[in-house]
């Protein structure tokens, strides 16, 4: 079982990427499960994924990086023990600190995870502003990413995309970086990297 964590600030495009990955997994004959942690009394993203017939597990009433780490671990163990999934995609809430999510994984007692990868989704329309006002959270996400995705490329100007790329590379210059259009097709090498 592979684990893919999709990180990114609120509204960065995580759900859109996950929906594309779910379609790609299906096309590759991979069984995927989604663990969704949304902030708020009502989950919108999990309702949407359920509407689209995806295999969704929801973590409610708290943040996956703070109060729900035990729920994350127990859900992973259930998926390992009872369901033959190839990949588990975890969407922490957009307010989660990736470091805190990682601290939960050593408590997982299922079969060893074949891989743990982070993809960090960044909104080029707001990245400069977010790096100013929420720098610790946003920079931690960029640093953590094994793969970086700048979303909404079709909504941003060339200058916004260039600035987002520069700011991202200043924090993390090792991870592959992709610019994706909203709802566009995923590049094959990105899919291969995220869905082994």
């Amino acid at each position, binding site marked *: 079982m592979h684990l893919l964590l999709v990180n990114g600030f609120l509204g960065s495009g995580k759900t859109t990427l996950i929906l594309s990955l779910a379609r790609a997994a299906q096309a590759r004959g991979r069984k995927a499960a989604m663990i969704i942690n949304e902030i708020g009394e009502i989950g919108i993203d999990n309702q*949407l994924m*359920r509407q689209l017939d995806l295999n969704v597990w929801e973590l*409610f009433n708290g943040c996956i990086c703070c109060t729900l780490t035990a*729920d994350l671990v127990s859900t992973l163990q259930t998926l390992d023990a009872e369901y033959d999934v190839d990949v588990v995609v975890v969407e922490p809430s*957009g307010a989660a600190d990736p470091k805190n999510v990682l601290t939960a994984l050593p408590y997982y007692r299922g079969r060893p995870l074949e891989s743990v990868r982070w993809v960090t989704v960044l909104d080029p329309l707001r990245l400069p502003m977010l790096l100013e*006002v929420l720098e610790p*959270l946003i920079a931690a996400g960029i640093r953590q990413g094994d793969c970086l995705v700048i979303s909404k490329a079709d909504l941003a100007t060339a200058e916004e995309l260039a600035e987002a790329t520069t700011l991202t590379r200043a924090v993390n210059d090792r991870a592959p970086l992709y610019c994706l259009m909203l709802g566009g097709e995923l590049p094959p090498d990105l899919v291969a990297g995220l869905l082994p």
Partner: protein
Amino acid sequence: MSLKLAAGLPSLEPYALQQRWTLPRSLSPGEWAAMFSDYLAGLARLCAEAGGQASSDAAGRNRAAPHVVIGHIKLLALFDGGEYLRVSMVSPRHGATVTGSTPSGLSEMPVTLNVLVYGLPAERLAGLTAAAAAAVAGHWGAAVETVPLPHHHHHHERTEHADQP
């Protein structure tokens, strides 16, 4: 629920509600999308103004750290047959993003709204949401009814389709 992420960051009090929008005539899918886009844009503008930042900031960013940061304002409507309408707003500087579409011929629609804005208490967000809804409803001749939220009994809940693993 209030989330304080780290020292120096504004707190986040999520606000959610369900509404039923009723129109005197059926709207086209494009009209529904336009109406809800106006709704979320108006709400984002009100939130920004409540935080004291100009929504038409020409530089496009907030050089002085704002008291209010819009995280995500999103609206979802679900329909039979797997159809959906999702409207998303992250900044008053940018228009709403719309995915999915409504079926044709609808004159009423239940929607779920999540308002995730740093720096404004939920009570204040409730007032701003009501004001934004009233403004758009007035423009379109719509009636808006707030529906009580369902209560979640479980912290951890599986929701899967029958033919999934």
